[in-house]
């Protein structure tokens, strides 16, 4: 497998990209997604793979500086197996080749020579200029003609003006293995970037979209909202606090001197390349009116139940009904498993009337590894869920 350079995305793809694959990063104009390709280049070089980078739109120096600005560190090419074809080479070809066929032959000759000399394992191509000059099939055929012993992996970035129609051609005519569409919602300005796995050949995966942000030179898949809810005193605040690197809690002291959230707990964590925001709700029924607002745009939910308090399960069941109406991934965190209790999974499932595919995890919300395991499972669920 070859890494995308983004751990979270590798995980979604089942460990990365199989060698010899053809990968497309399709960029909608104006969307800041150049780090997808650049992350893959950095990763391939770090793994000492032999690379050919084709940059018809820029010079090598300008590319290296741009990549360093985006990534936060210079691409280390000294002593590495990397070759480039850049804008200057393209201009030479344009000057020397009188016809399109001649230019195509010259491109092919240069690519072949570099591939042969370096036994290229990965070709990175900025494709839109080649597409413009030679068309889809002839342009891509130039990259495929690389005469290495092993079929190289080909990863291209393409500025896509033609939308899904062009993506279908990459999949159907060119048999691409992975097609990732990088887009943004554009209101007054692009405020919400997301990528969509349009097609993967090696793993059964439904088409799905994941928002992302750029943080410290990395693409961070972004889960803007996971809601943590459950009956009162089931351990929701503890769950959010244990999971989060930073947490804010809006509390009111109750009669028993316990603190009970009357607004919400908000926690943030960066984990496995994901940036995740947790919203812990109050558990009392008088706050049910605010639940739809809190659930709006949520990508998943954790229901925390207290396994020592079967009497609270009716309330949990009601919350599950409210969340199920929203159609989102849901997991059950059966909390206080470290205390004496009698409920097993079957009894919990029966009491909550759970669907078969709703997972139940026995945890202590005080234990970081338990909480992270619940979140890991939910994130996995979210990234495979068709919203």
């Amino acid at each position, binding site marked *: 497998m070859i890494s995308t350079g983004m751990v979270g995305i590798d995980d979604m793809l089942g460990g990365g990209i199989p060698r010899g694959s053809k990968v497309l990063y399709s960029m909608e104009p104006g969307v800041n997604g150049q780090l997808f390709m650049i992350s893959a280049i950095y990763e391939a070089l770090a793994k000492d793979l032999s690379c050919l980078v084709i940059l018809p739109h820029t010079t090598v120096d300008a590319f290296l500086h*741009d990549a360093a600005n985006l990534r936060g560190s210079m691409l280390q090419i000294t002593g590495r197996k990397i070759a480039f074809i850049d*804008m200057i080479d393209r201009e030479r070809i344009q000057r020397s080749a009188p016809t399109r066929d001649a230019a195509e032959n010259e491109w092919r000759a240069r690519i072949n020579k570099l591939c042969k000399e370096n036994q290229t394992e990965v070709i990175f191509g900025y494709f839109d200029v080649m597409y413009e000059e030679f068309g889809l099939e002839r342009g891509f055929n130039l990259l495929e003609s690389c005469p290495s012993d092993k079929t190289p992996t080909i990863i291209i970035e393409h*500025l896509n003006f033609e939308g899904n129609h062009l993506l279908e051609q990459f999949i159907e005519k060119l048999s691409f293995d992975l097609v990732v569409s990088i887009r943004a919602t554009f209101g007054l300005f692009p405020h919400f970037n997301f990528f969509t796995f349009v097609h993967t050949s090696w793993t059964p995966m439904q088409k799905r979209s994941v928002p992302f942000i750029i943080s410290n030179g990395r693409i961070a898949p972004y889960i803007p909202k996971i809601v943590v809810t459950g009956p009162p005193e089931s351990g929701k605040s503890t769950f959010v606090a244990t999971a989060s690197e930073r947490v804010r809690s809006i509390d009111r002291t109750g009669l028993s001197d316990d603190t009970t959230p009357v607004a919400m707990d908000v926690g943030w964590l960066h984990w496995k390349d994901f940036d995740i925001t947790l919203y812990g709700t109050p558990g009392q029924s008088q706050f049910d009116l605010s639940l739809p607002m809190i659930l709006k745009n949520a990508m998943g939910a954790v229901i925390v139940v207290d396994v020592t308090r079967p009497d609270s399960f009716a309330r949990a069941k009601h919350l599950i009904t409210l969340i199920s109406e929203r159609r989102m991934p849901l997991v059950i965190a059966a909390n206080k498993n470290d205390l004496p209790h009698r409920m097993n999974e079957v009894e919990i499932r029966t009491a909550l009337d759970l669907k078969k595919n709703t997972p139940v995890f026995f945890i202590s919300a005080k234990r970081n590894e338990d909480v992270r395991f619940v979140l890991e499972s939910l994130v996995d669920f979210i990234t495979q869920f068709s919203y």
Partner: protein
Amino acid sequence: MYFYKTGIAQIDGVSGGIEAGTNILLLAPPMSSAEQLAYAIIKPGPGEYSIVLSTNERAAEVVDFFKSAGCDKKFIGVIDAITKSSTPATADTPRLTFVSSPTDLTGIGIKFSNMIESIFEGTFADGETGLFPPPIRFCVNSLSTLLMYRKLEVLYQFLHILTAKQKRIEGVAIYLLNNESFDDKTLSLIKQLMTGVIEVKVDGNDNYFRIMGIRGTQADWQKFTINKGQVTIVP
């Protein structure tokens, strides 16, 4: 509806300025004052912002023009598509950004989006803010250069997106094109994306313009001069 003052009485006097969301093609022969005319029209008024995509002049030269016209440089952004090819290490600042060449439409699109985003977020002008929603004037100088690097079909698609975004942010944009270097098909295709056209001609040492498609304006040729970003109609 916001109206962008141009300093040209034939436009401002009739309709109060150019309507928000307008895209204007500025057709002109080489060696005319078209570039100065375009800059004069997109010069930011109080509380407004201007962005120039420059394929002909370095960012510093563009900023100098606006400074000489009395503008506050904090409200001027430039996407420079020429400097980086000779000075690859040139680094972006919040208002001066660089792409490697006019070929790089990916980079141009991203820099444009980033600038618009920073204007809306209020981080563009060193903490100073103008009007909200921000009125943004935009100039592409020039389509002629972009057409030397990319095919018409591709540039058309790119402009289709750019003009649509310009409408959505309720800006005003002006696109320079040398009308002597391109055929009628090119001109008519690009005109399809525009709301109006300003045409410039040179007769002897004199420059003339006429305005077509901008509401309320007459399409007569007007002799004009420009001094420090101020357009004067010569009777």
